């Protein structure tokens, strides 16, 4: 189990962004973390994976542990070695490098099995297999997301943290990604799924947490959240009568904020 207890995070010594966040990701489950822009979802992932430092952020309270072992403030490479891998927001593939080089980088801490894992991931993603020697930057958005996920699998993680994997993808690709996440989970990987696409996330997860301005404001079984009035209203884009909007296209697209340090 990956457990986050009472986490408080401050950027640049003054900007308080997480105000005591607690949640748990039990082994073998898919847990969804939902919330609107700027609610602090990415900051949660950065806290777990040791990436706050480069963002000039600090954990000022609380702790993070895997299977009882405290991992608060470990450096990123140690975290990966503990079996926690992430798919970063915006994919962040190394676009100047080839597909295979990207995969090798995902396996940086796991050199022993690197060739097996490359083969395994390429078998999972035939589109990548065909372009394995090509520059990753020329892949389509969907293929880049596949590559980002495949790269994260290279370390054979026990826990996979995904930050908005459906971002900017066409509905069909979103479906494909959600099937893929379930598949990965079935193979024994525990998943934290950070999403703005609440519908997709709640449909495939066991449990859901909802964040607002640095706090967890609600948590429940995903099915229950799907049926909750407020959740339906605010996060699923359903009106009071419960008629679903026609397609993902109609759900208001939000504007990306300028990325820090991108």
């Amino acid at each position, binding site marked *: 189990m990956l457990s986050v207890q009472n986490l408080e995070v401050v950027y640049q010594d003054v900007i308080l962004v997480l105000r005591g966040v607690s949640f748990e990701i039990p082994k073998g489950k898919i847990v969804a973390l939902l919330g609107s822009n700027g609610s602090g979802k990415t900051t949660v992932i950065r806290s777990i994976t040791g990436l706050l430092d480069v963002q000039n952020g600090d954990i000022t309270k609380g702790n993070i542990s895997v299977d009882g072992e405290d991992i608060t403030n470990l450096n990123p490479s140690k975290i990966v070695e503990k079996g926690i891998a992430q798919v970063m927001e915006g994919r962040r593939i190394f676009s100047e490098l080839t597909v295979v080089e990207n995969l090798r980088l995902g396996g*940086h801490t796991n050199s022993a099995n690197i060739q097996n894992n490359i083969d395994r991931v390429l078998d999972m993603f035939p589109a990548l297999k065909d372009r394995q020697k090509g520059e990753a930057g020329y892949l389509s958005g969907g293929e880049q997301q596949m590559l980002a996920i495949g790269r994260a699998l290279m370390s054979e993680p026990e826990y996979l943290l995904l930050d908005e994997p459906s971002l900017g993808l066409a509905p069909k690709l979103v479906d494909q990604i959600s099937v893929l996440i379930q598949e990965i989970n079935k193979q024994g990987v525990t998943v934290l799924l950070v999403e703005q696409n609440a519908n997709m996330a709640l449909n495939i997860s066991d449990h859901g947490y909802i964040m607002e301005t640095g706090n967890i404001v609600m948590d429940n079984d995903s099915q229950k959240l799907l049926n909750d009035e407020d959740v339906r209203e605010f996060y699923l884009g359903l009106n009071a009568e419960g008629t679903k909007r026609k397609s993902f296209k109609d759900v208001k697209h939000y504007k990306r904020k300028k990325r820090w340090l991108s």
Partner: protein
Amino acid sequence: MTIFLQATVEGLSLAAIYSLVAIGFVLIYKSMDVLSFAQPALAVVGAGLISSLAVDRGVPFWLALFIGITLTGVLGLIVERTFLRPMVGEPVFSVAILTIGIDILLRTTLDNWIGLNPRYMGDPFPTFGNFGSAQFSGVTIKYLEIAALTTAILIIIALNIFFKKSKYGVAMRATSFDQEAALAQGINVGRIFGLVWFIAGILAAFAGFFITGGFNTLSQTSFVVALRALPAVVIGGLDSIPGAVIGSIIIGLTQGYVAYYQYDFETITGITLGNGFSLLAPYIIMFVILVLKPDGLFGTKEVERV
């Protein structure tokens, strides 16, 4: 024709020296966004170490060369760890100033040791007398020049293989491209920075040896030669290794041709360029290229305006 070939050979061997320094500079800039003005100092410190081992302490030449070059790599690593690591995230300009400070620190220490008499590097082939030279239909090529050229070529090939095939080479490219994403893969970015400086130190020490080997000797002004790698880097674009090599070739050849043809030029045109114009020419070329192409010939990254 003979003069042309002679000038070309000498120009290219200078290019080899410049490119060794320049590649180190580019590696550091690409991975850390640091403009390191300490590379010339590392070059001459490397030469100092080799000389002190081979000449003062009587260590066999090849062993002295190996130890001196490795120690310079380690010195680069120490410089990174103690001075630059704490500066991560600081503005490019402040860090550049810091590297100038490091340059001065290293060179003053070295100058105290050098004193007034030039230092020799020792001679790998005592029988040839200071490295000797070969003649090819009127063109004289010093063994030292051949050594500089082959070393530079071999190092460039080796680096290429390293960046393509080795785990840390690929990790280094990834770190240059996106440091945060590299961290997320579990790459120890601090270790990469150390490795970059180790490599840059080794390259600088090779350059230092070729600058001061043979009759050239190591003196308090030897670093000026390594400093000429700077216009080479600027011409090539700060973040391009091929650019650094091509920039070095441009600077080296310019210097060679100006040295050999300046007199003819002056007698034909009646314009006097002055003594040692060949040393000034690289900076003039740099200036012209910067005016035409502010990012250098191959550069992509924009340097933070200061």
